[in-house]
């Protein structure tokens, strides 16, 4: 009897969809951190403003500048961020690290800002690299149905007539471990169980995306919303899609309660696509 009850409870839970409800992202203040000084620093902030201007948040919020004269080391940057208490920190990569090879890290300042303070960070390409015209925003995650805020931010960053691409990738390396474990449990069908688990894992984000598309069709009729749900090597799929869809901004999570989720992928993506602006939440 327990089997039968479990079977029906599962069947009903399967039909329960995490629906995207959507809420507005409010940004009242932004802090632009740079190592440039004077005119160059102000120009950098103006470029960042211009980059965000097509977004739904464009023109909103008070901008403040922490230029190269305002900080000397990472502690003073963090102190400045705490004192300014902005809603978003905007920062180019490789501050005061002119000699670092750009494929090896984000730069110390940006790296610490994503880890040591809770505010979202908009990572811009290294100074001197032109910013793209913000039109296509890609939200990339392995937990889309549980991450409504990520979609809220993606939508907030997208232009009213732009495109929002919601991407969920189940990492096949992680799944391979589960498949191996399943193959060693006699009570589970080694062929059928992984297929059913993967179907269920992909079913949830698909349903969530469907509800998000319906929600934006009502609230943001000009916005084109597309979804991609698949399994594969997450970083590789995200990179491929970003290139294929000519994405102008990537939105990713860098932390969960345990400070672990997505950090590895976000880090890898940000490093491997140094010319792409990335919103790190």
């Amino acid at each position: 009897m327990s089997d039968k009850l479990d079977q029906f409870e599962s069947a009903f839970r399967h039909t329960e969809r995490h629906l995207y409800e959507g809420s507005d992202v409010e940004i009242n203040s932004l802090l632009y951190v740079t190592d440039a000084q004077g005119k160059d620093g102000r120009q950098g902030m103006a470029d960042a403003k211009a980059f965000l201007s097509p977004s739904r948040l464009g023109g909103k919020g008070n901008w403040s500048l922490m230029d190269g004269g305002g900080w000397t080391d990472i502690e003073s940057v963090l102190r400045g961020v705490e004192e300014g208490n902005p809603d978003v920190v905007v920062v180019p990569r490789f501050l005061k690290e002119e000699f670092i090879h750009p494929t090896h890290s984000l730069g110390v300042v940006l790296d610490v800002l994503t880890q040591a303070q809770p505010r979202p960070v908009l990572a811009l390409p290294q100074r001197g690299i032109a910013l793209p015209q913000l039109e296509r925003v890609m939200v990339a995650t392995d937990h889309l149905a549980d991450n409504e805020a990520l979609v809220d931010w993606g939508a907030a960053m997208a232009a009213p007539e732009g495109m929002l691409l919601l991407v969920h990738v189940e990492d096949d390396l992680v799944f391979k471990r589960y498949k191996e474990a399943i193959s060693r449990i006699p009570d589970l069908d080694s062929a059928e169980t992984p297929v059913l688990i993967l179907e269920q894992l992909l079913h949830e984000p698909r349903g969530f995306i469907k509800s998000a598309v319906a929600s934006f069709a009502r609230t943001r009729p000009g916005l084109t919303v597309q979804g991609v749900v698949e399994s594969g090597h997450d970083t590789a799929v995200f990179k491929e899609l970003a290139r294929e869809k000519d994405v102008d901004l990537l939105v990713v999570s860098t932390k969960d309660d345990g400070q672990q989720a997505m950090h590895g992928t976000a880090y890898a993506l940000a490093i491997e696509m140094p010319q792409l602006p990335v919103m790190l939440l």
Partner: protein
Amino acid sequence: MTTLVFGLLLAGMVAALAMEERIHAKKSVIASGFAVVALLLGQAMGILPGSDVVVGGHHIHIPVYIPPVDWEVIAIVLGTGIFVEVTAKSGLYNFIALRVTRASRGDPRRLLWLYGVMTVLFSAVLNNVTAMVIVGSLTVVSLEKLQRRDMLLGFLLVEGLLTNVGGLLTLISSIPNIIVGAAAGIGFVPFFLKAAPYVVVATVVTIMMGGRRFGIKALAPNDRDRAAEQVNAFQPDDAIVNPALFRIGGVALALLVLVFSFASAIPVVRDLGLGFVALAFGAAMLWAEKATADRVYSGLDWDLLAFFASLFVVIGVAEHAGVLDALAGGIATVLGWGEKVGTATLLVAGAGASSVTDNVPLAAVLARVLGNQASPVAEGSWWAVVFGANLGGNLTPIGSASTLVAVTIAHRHGVKLGFVRFFTLAWRFAAVQLALAALYLTLLP
């Protein structure tokens, strides 16, 4: 002496079935054990009749344990079992249940009414246990979604009690109905027309009592939108496992009810009987699942079928030993008290017996006894057996398989619902249902 021995054997089987859970044995195992002993004793004592029949001048040997089995009942149970198993796999019932959930807009009081009515209708079309499994499982999931787990006990109890009310609605809704209907020659439509008014009244009264007893109230206006959003998260379309089978299942279900209703008016089908109808529909649905029919077979309740066959054998031997004649004498005395008093007494006695043991042997014995009366018994007596056997299950958690399912679901989700607590909560409902039944039966023309 022979009658006493087999009377004790029959009583022993009934007692063992009542303690099924305690002795950790399936019904079929208990009944088949008693059937083996009854056959051995019956043969040794020389009470079993010869088992050769002559067909077209040929002597055919039929084993002595074959004729007592009511194959019409077995055919109905097997055929409808296959039919329900296949249609359930299509997601048809889950789809309906989720539609009903969304229609409630998340309001607990409306949900109780809708789930209550759905329980009755599912019990009428499916079997009580399947109905309780579907509605009970969905109750757990939807109350979790609505963050109203505190109402789980009230919902499960009301639903459990209503499975036995819904089990009265049609001839195929429960096993006692099938057995008594076959013995009394009551057709599908006459059965429905007689039972439906009572089922409607008992359903309404039970839900109203449940809502009041467990404090299940309507939502305040401010909470309504949120609750509606929560239940809208359920997507009925996602319950459809196989769209083609889903459509076939829906049409076949409607056809099944239609053919059952008019079987007595359809030439050829009329002669083949309801058992044939059930088997034919079961076979037709199996065709839709022809490649995986073995999975359908594995989902059938073979314990129940083996139990029936064994039970009929025990009762058959007891009949040859004169046990049923002795019981008939007692029943005749009760019926002699007058149509109304006799009927009401039979109802209450049947319910009392059904509350502590399986209602199938009770219905099988009483149907055989009533059928063997010297003069035809009043129709009310047959109905008293049907109502008593079904409603008696609401007095205790062991009285019916479906209330036991309700208790099992409650336990799985941390709600303690032992024998005493169940009885304390349920007896008022059962008493009201029985009082309504007694009143209804005495008013029957």
